[in-house]
């Protein structure tokens, strides 16, 4: 009984970033699975809850979208739109902005009449009018604009010949992959390098699931890795900036504050009008020091990292420091 009271006292005092963190593990070991569930389903955690919204806006909102803008200024290849995906991008705007306004009625609103739209975003002190289908009506183009309003990365898949093709996207916060490289590829090809995933038929099943999603349906799943520092942009393009630290972090006394659990909440949406599949990838980073403030999380993350098979650790790029991380978490 006293333990429960203690836990409540601890969680009550936790900051929002911990309370709302999408803790991704349901047991003390982790394997790939088709862990798909309906979107907007609230998940209770040891620290609080997450998942009630399609587009989560948190304390990092303004800094995240600012950072995205800077990445795009430096490297425009992080936006890709094959010409036939224009309707899908506009469909995403017509779907996501109203959803966001509905979830944040005090700070946002969306009005549409025919193809003329008005969008107000009080958090950015922004009011714009634009016309669906007219790319010049939004500065920087529709996809860049949409990327300036949400914290999520976006990947668009076209369905044809019974397969899915990555034909558009805006990805500035990728976990060690590259949109520019993958654009135009098949869903199957993109997942080629992930160990175990192809053998276990997870990609085929996921693809079958996606192929059968009906317009308007929304599901989600989580994925995770580790990242050093609260660094959102760990794409292949910036590899030299972040990868070398993976070799030295194990001996860094600041490891608990620097190593972050990186969780992606991925929404899988069949857009209602274009029929394209939209992946929203929202990245959350929480330091091990923060993780350790929730005793159950400390234990689970420690065990998951210790138990993870070597090929998966290698693929996630964490093999050189995962032991140091789990040792720290499991030492009480």
């Amino acid at each position, binding site marked *: 009984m006293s333990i429960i009271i203690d836990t409540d006292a601890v969680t009550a005092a936790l900051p929002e970033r911990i309370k709302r963190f999408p803790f991704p593990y349901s047991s003390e070991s982790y394997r790939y699975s088709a862990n798909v569930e309906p979107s907007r389903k609230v998940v209770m955690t040891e620290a609080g809850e997450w998942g009630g919204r399609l587009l989560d806006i948190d304390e990092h909102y303004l800094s995240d979208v600012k950072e995205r803008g800077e990445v795009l200024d430096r490297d425009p290849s992080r936006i890709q739109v094959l010409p036939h995906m224009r309707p899908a991008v506009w469909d995403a705007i017509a779907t996501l902005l109203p959803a966001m306004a509905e979830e944040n009625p005090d700070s946002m609103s969306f009005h549409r009449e025919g193809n003329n739209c008005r969008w107000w975003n009080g958090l950015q002190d922004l009011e714009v009018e634009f016309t669906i289908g007219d790319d010049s009506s939004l500065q920087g183009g529709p996809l860049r604009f949409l990327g300036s309003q949400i914290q999520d990365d976006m990947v668009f898949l076209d369905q044809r010949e019974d397969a899915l093709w990555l034909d558009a996207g805006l990805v500035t916060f990728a976990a060690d992959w590259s949109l520019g490289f993958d654009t135009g590829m098949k869903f199957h090809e993109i997942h080629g390098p992930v160990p175990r995933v192809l053998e276990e038929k997870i990609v085929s099943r996921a693809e079958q699931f996606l192929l059968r999603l009906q317009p*308007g349906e929304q599901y989600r799943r989580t994925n995770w890795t580790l990242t050093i520092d609260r660094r959102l942009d760990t794409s292949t393009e910036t590899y030299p900036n972040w990868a070398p630290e993976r070799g030295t972090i194990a001996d860094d006394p600041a490891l608990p504050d620097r190593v972050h659990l990186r969780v992606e909440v991925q929404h899988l949406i069949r857009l209602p009008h274009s029929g394209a599949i939209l992946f929203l990838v929202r990245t959350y980073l929480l330091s091990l020091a923060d993780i350790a403030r929730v005793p159950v999380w400390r234990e689970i993350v420690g065990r998951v990292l210790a138990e993870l098979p070597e090929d998966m650790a290698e693929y996630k790029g964490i093999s050189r420091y995962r032991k140091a991380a789990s040792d720290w978490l499991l030492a009480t």
Partner: protein
Amino acid sequence: MTATTLETTVHPAVAGGLLLEVTNVSIQTPSITSIMFRDPSGEPLPPYVPGSHLVVQYGTGANAYSLTGSGSAPFEYTISVLRVEGSAGGSLAMHELAVGDRVHVSRPRSAFAPAANAKHHLLIAAGIGITPVLSHARFAAEWGAAASLIYCYRPGEGAHVAEARELLGQGLTECHNRGSFQEVLTEKLTTQKLGTHLYVCGPAAFMDSVLEQARDLGWPKGLLHSEAFGAADLDEGQPFSVNLARSGIRLEVPAGVSLLETLEKAGKSIPNMCRKGICGECSLSVLRGAPQHRDLYLSDQEKAENTTMMCCVSRSLDEELELDL
């Protein structure tokens, strides 16, 4: 749902859908009527993918009809229905709908989507088959995509002809008999630019013939799309029996009655949506026996594996099937 609704039981195929009001009924031709539905409170309706269909409940039955709009931010859904005398009753019931009636409909389902990367959309329709391709033509016009239409109809029986002319202009070819249609078809099938996708909708024999000619002329399968408008007219099939392994019961499925209906009558509730072998909702696991697959949902490979079947349309090649139910 309001208390004034006459239909108290919602058909499983429209469960989770919408309750709409008929706001307009217009005669297209002596045998084709267009019906427009809106949300009773004037709210916008869910957008839909061009070529989508709507399942509409009538009395105790439900039928699928193609939506004729482009699907962009709709405030109304419009379907056009051909009166088929002596049919199961759906088309006659649709023709009796009047302004102010309320009906249960499904959410729009996509089963005949345009290919986003097509360089040109070659649309081919016979009779009431115009409805889903009209939706494609509108979408193409809205996004500035290239489209042409061969529309084959009996004189005086051309639904939506005026709209087709306006949407497609020079891109529309109208045919009133087989000979002229065949001429135009051959010409179109042999002169398309690379990257043209073909979409055909109409009676089954018409579609088969168009698709066969296209394949014979070397069109790859990935460029050919068809909407099985007449899919409801599957033949009655042979009677067979099913053994439900988990429930330990055996049921007879008579000719002309689907496995899904038989299971429902026996008190089993099977998720289902289209009841036409398109949506994939009614999938069942087969433990023993070879189903006669008549659906459009499973891939050829999945059909060959004989481990799943769509119980709304598929039957049995063997005298008995054993199901995991």
